[in-house]
């Protein structure tokens, strides 16, 4: 290619350099950016934590609270949490300007209150998740609903032994 022709080509293409960071840059609508948990909806079910490949989301229990902890620094922006969340509580926004000099800024915590088991007193599930489960499986009755999984597993044995009518829990 001749030099004149090349110059003509360069002029016809013009300037390609973006002005960013002095001007905003356009991001496609389905860009997978920063995931954000809507704390008003999240039930603390932990589905996102089991789906997250780098375990950027971890669900832990701290006394009365179940803590959904999202650490953005480790997130790989795959969107699996958004796919599995049954409540639609976690969404990937188009935000990509996440750089910060402060490591603490990269965390999101959602602390949800838990219900205590009526028999052994151990906090075992969040209020919200229990209420949500009830909508899906409304046939678990009365007190048995407020039993932790271990006590619930023991409950049928107790009916057999005690000869209750099944409503005593």
């Amino acid at each position, binding site marked *: 290619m001749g030099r004149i022709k090349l110059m003509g080509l360069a002029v016809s293409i013009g300037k390609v350099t973006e002005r960013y960071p002095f001007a905003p840059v356009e991001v496609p609508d389905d860009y997978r950016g920063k995931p954000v948990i809507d704390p008003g909806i999240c039930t603390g079910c932990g589905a996102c934590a089991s789906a997250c490949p780098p375990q950027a989301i971890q669900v832990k229990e701290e006394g009365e609270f179940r803590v959904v902890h999202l650490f953005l*620094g*480790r997130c790989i922006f795959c969107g699996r949490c958004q796919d599995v969340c049954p409540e639609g509580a976690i969404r990937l926004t188009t935000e990509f300007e*996440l750089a910060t000099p402060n490591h603490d800024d990269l965390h999101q915590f959602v602390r949800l209150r838990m219900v205590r088991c009526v028999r052994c007193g151990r906090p075992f599930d969040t209020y919200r998740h229990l209420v949500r489960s009830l909508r899906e499986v409304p046939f678990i009755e009365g007190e048995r609903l407020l039993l932790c999984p271990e006590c619930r597993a023991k409950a049928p044995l107790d009916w057999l032994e005690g000869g209750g009518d099944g409503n005593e829990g």
Partner: protein
Amino acid sequence: METRVEDYRKLVKRSLWVFHLNSGSCNGCDIEILNVFAPRNDVERLGIKLVGSPRHADAIALTGPVTRECLPKVVDAIKAVPEPKIVLAIGACACGGGIWYDTYSVVGGVKELYRIMKEEYGMEAPPTVFIPGCPPKPEAIIYGVAVAKGMIEPKQRRMVYVEEGGGDELARMLEEVNGLRHFSAGFKVRRDVNGT
């Protein structure tokens, strides 16, 4: 750590020369770093330049989760950068270990690296700008550099939500349960399991 970055900003009013240090990255982040220097983003217009030796650099662009094999070399490279220096931790791997954070062969991100540097080499952690992403978009890297140079205030903030409420929640819930009840478990468990 934030204040230290601000100290650094006062010191470095000059152009930022960057040494690209790959500590076991998958190459994704490295390609994005090269993109940043390509015509579309062209950060040389901001005075940012890649250099071939850490001794010439002001900043280290660290990618990868720091494998055990390259740990001493990474420490040497950080040591070789003259003060004042800054580390740009680029990508999920550098920021928090990424998908390898708990595997046997990696240290797992700059936080762990700094802990080892302090305990075993007696070095203070340099100021660091974390740029999450896997890999971060070229614009995200430019944003990180702009944060390091003090051109932009970072907007990412820690978010903590604590659910309010307690005992009355339970009552409300039981009410809700009763409202939903459509099946009564009024059955008797058969006791003659051994007979019939």
